[in-house]
């Protein structure tokens, strides 16, 4: 068996074909998943919408940036509206959003897809996961996410995996010319679209090389990488411009010949001409980029290569640490990366451990790790309509009783007696007891003259049918340096009298 010698040698091309099939799976999966939604979307052909979405992104992304989500969604909405015209535009927008989000695979950490495959390595069958993306979110010039179709997605569209771009192109041209000649405009329309996509693929590879050169000119080999693509793409453009002009002439003749009743045919031809115009525009853009490529490359070379070498060399973080770390497996890179983090960050004050916190932490049910994907639900707040426990009149009564505490103080039992004068069923006594309990812990301002009241336990027990405990003594105190009290008291007789009485007993 030859399969035994190579590293993951795939003699039958099974892995390649499995990968090609896997890429189609997310698209087909939409059709299966639509039934599991709690919405009646059965009438929509989800695969068609998905291909429309991939089409829209592929055609709208240009040399520099990706397609806007809204632009791609608009195309899908249009097709959705054709499929289900009796449904509202809101539902069409929902469907389009769902299709696009599913193709991005929102909700997964990496926003991609995975499919298992296997190859024979060293005589043994090994399984591997194949990771791929269909639509990838990339940053636009304004920092907002844009969409780019990945190579895999374009492959699904064109219907062939790992095709030779150039030969496909020649075939497509011949096909397009033949179709137009035979007057099969609908087919010609489709073929023109395919040709346009291939032009975009050339643009993609050129963009990639230039971007790499901009970062590091040594990473690109001009003669092999860029020069080759440049020559090939220039030839391609030249041929395309000739071909498209010829087709255009052909089309104009067809339109002129078409009888007045053939309105549909005329419309088709007009649409085809529009696509060809788009093709020409793309070719011009690609040609301009190609012509600039040499200049960009030389400029970067001058900027990057001919700088003076450093006088004294230390560690070069990018070249000596980052670049090698990227080649390591995630598991092996963990140690050195963690070491770098700890040492670059410096020492940290360890958090002081509080035992009850540790216990609570150990007992807590582990929370789902936040991925940032969760929908933030706005809490629905209602006005608090609870009845207050005590009525305003009861508060007033309790306040009045406490304000009436004489300078010498009063027993809680006496105050409770006053509170119960209103009669049975009224629980002003409970309110008063609560307020006095509060005074026991901290003196508080009570009473009209702004004096401070305080409750003290002198050992006497409370003899009361409702409450038990100490029969505390409630008495006014004067807080030294209390500006409020001083200002309000203003040297009036009661204030002074209370101060005199209070200071003797409780000097804070």
């Amino acid at each position: 068996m030859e399969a035994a010698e190579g590293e993951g040698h795939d003699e039958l091309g099974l892995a390649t074909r499995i990968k090609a099939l896997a890429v189609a799976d997310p698209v087909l999966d939409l059709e299966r998943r639509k039934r599991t939604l709690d919405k009646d979307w059965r009438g929509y052909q989800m695969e068609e919408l998905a291909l429309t979405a991939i089409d829209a992104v592929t055609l709208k992304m240009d040399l520099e940036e990706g397609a806007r989500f809204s632009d791609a969604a608009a195309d899908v909405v249009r097709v959705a509206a054709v499929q289900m015209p009796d449904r509202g535009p809101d539902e069409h927008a929902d469907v389009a959003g769902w299709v696009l989000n599913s193709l991005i695979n929102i909700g997964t950490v990496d926003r991609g897809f995975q499919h298992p495959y296997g190859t024979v390595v060293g005589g043994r069958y090994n399984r591997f996961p194949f990771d791929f993306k269909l639509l990838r979110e990339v940053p636009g010039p304004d920092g907002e996410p844009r969409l780019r179709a990945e190579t895999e997605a374009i492959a699904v569209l064109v219907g062939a995996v790992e095709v030779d771009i150039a030969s496909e192109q020649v075939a497509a041209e011949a096909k397009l010319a033949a179709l137009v000649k035979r007057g099969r405009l609908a087919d010609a329309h489709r073929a023109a679209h395919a040709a346009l996509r291939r032009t975009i693929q050339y643009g993609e590879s050129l963009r990639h090389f230039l971007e790499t050169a901009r970062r590091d000119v040594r990473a690109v080999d001009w003669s092999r990488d860029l020069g080759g693509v440049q020559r090939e793409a220039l030839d391609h453009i030249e041929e395309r411009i000739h071909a498209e002009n010829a087709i255009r002439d052909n089309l104009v003749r067809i339109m002129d010949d078409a009888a007045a009743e053939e309105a549909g045919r005329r419309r088709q031809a007009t649409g085809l001409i529009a696509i060809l115009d788009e093709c020409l525009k793309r070719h011009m853009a690609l040609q301009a980029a190609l012509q600039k490529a040499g200049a960009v490359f030389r400029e970067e070379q001058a900027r990057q290569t001919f700088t003076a070498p450093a006088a004294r060399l230390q560690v070069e973080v990018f070249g000596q640490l980052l670049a090698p770390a990227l080649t390591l497996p995630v598991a092996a890179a963990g140690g050195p990366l963690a070491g770098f983090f700890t040492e670059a960050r410096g020492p940290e004050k360890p958090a002081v451990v509080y035992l009850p916190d540790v216990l609570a932490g150990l007992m807590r049910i582990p929370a789902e790790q936040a991925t940032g994907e969760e929908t933030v639900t706005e809490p629905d707040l209602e006005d608090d309509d609870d009845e207050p426990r005590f009525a305003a009149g009861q508060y007033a009564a309790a306040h009045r009783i406490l304000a009436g505490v004489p300078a010498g103080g009063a027993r809680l039992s006496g105050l409770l007696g006053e509170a119960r004068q209103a009669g049975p069923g009224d629980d002003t006594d409970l309110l008063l007891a609560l307020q006095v309990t509060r005074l026991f812990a901290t003196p508080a301002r009570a009473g009209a003259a702004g004096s401070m009241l305080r409750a003290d336990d002198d050992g006497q027990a409370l003899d009361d049918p409702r409450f038990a405990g100490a029969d505390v003594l409630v008495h006014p105190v004067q807080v030294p340096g209390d500006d409020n009290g001083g200002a309000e008291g203003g040297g009036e007789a009661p204030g002074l009298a209370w101060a005199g009485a209070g200071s003797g007993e409780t000097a804070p």
Partner: protein
Amino acid sequence: MSTLDDITDASRLVAFGFRPGTRPPQLAEYRDLTGRYLRDAGFAQVVHAAARGLGLTVIAVEPRAGIVLGPSLETPFAASVADHVPNTRDRPLVLLAHLAIAALAFPRAADLDDGTYVGRIAVDKVDEAVTAAADELSRRAAESGEAGDPPAGQPDLVALWRYYLRRNSVGQTGDGRALFTSRRGLIKRAAEYLADNGMLRRVSGDAGGTYSTTIRYQIQVRELAATQMLADLAGLGIAVPGGGPVPPRQPGPGENAA
């Protein structure tokens, strides 16, 4: 002055090492202690001894940055990776972001050496640079025809650059918020963490967040982190000589450019 007072002062200087936000020019006491360390060799020895007792190394004492301490591996003062990034799937990316921030802040070896150099980084640029390096590795892998998928059930064996490229660089959640587990979200998290700990200074919100480096960060990377990681990598059998961001593959592309 008594020995006990010396020990108190030395410990105070070490304690300042835990307050990266405080610098000698801001505080008279810190300034005096720094000055004394630089003048008085005996006092410097006491400071070193006090730090050693805590499992720390005095990397530098500098009039502008103050005392810069390096944690040894055993010390309880070493920052915990698990506390910084509890999610294990995000962890390699955040740690890589820390390295990439240092790499972009000091693009040339000379920048790391030059005490007056102030580096500037932006979240978007860090992502772009790492993406470019990863793309290049991806292209080489494609050329050599290697599949590179890790064996099923052992996701940890995937190369770090594949792991990086797999995550989207930006993203939006279903309800239109920016995704904080995207690559740029994680880089931002690392940069904010460094800024909170006095290693970076926030400059502006441009390009996803722009930061400048502090002297302390430069010293920490130069004297400890970079050299230590170089040794770690050498231990794994990877040694790259200095001289270029990505090692050159082919000699002189320049001759063919014309």
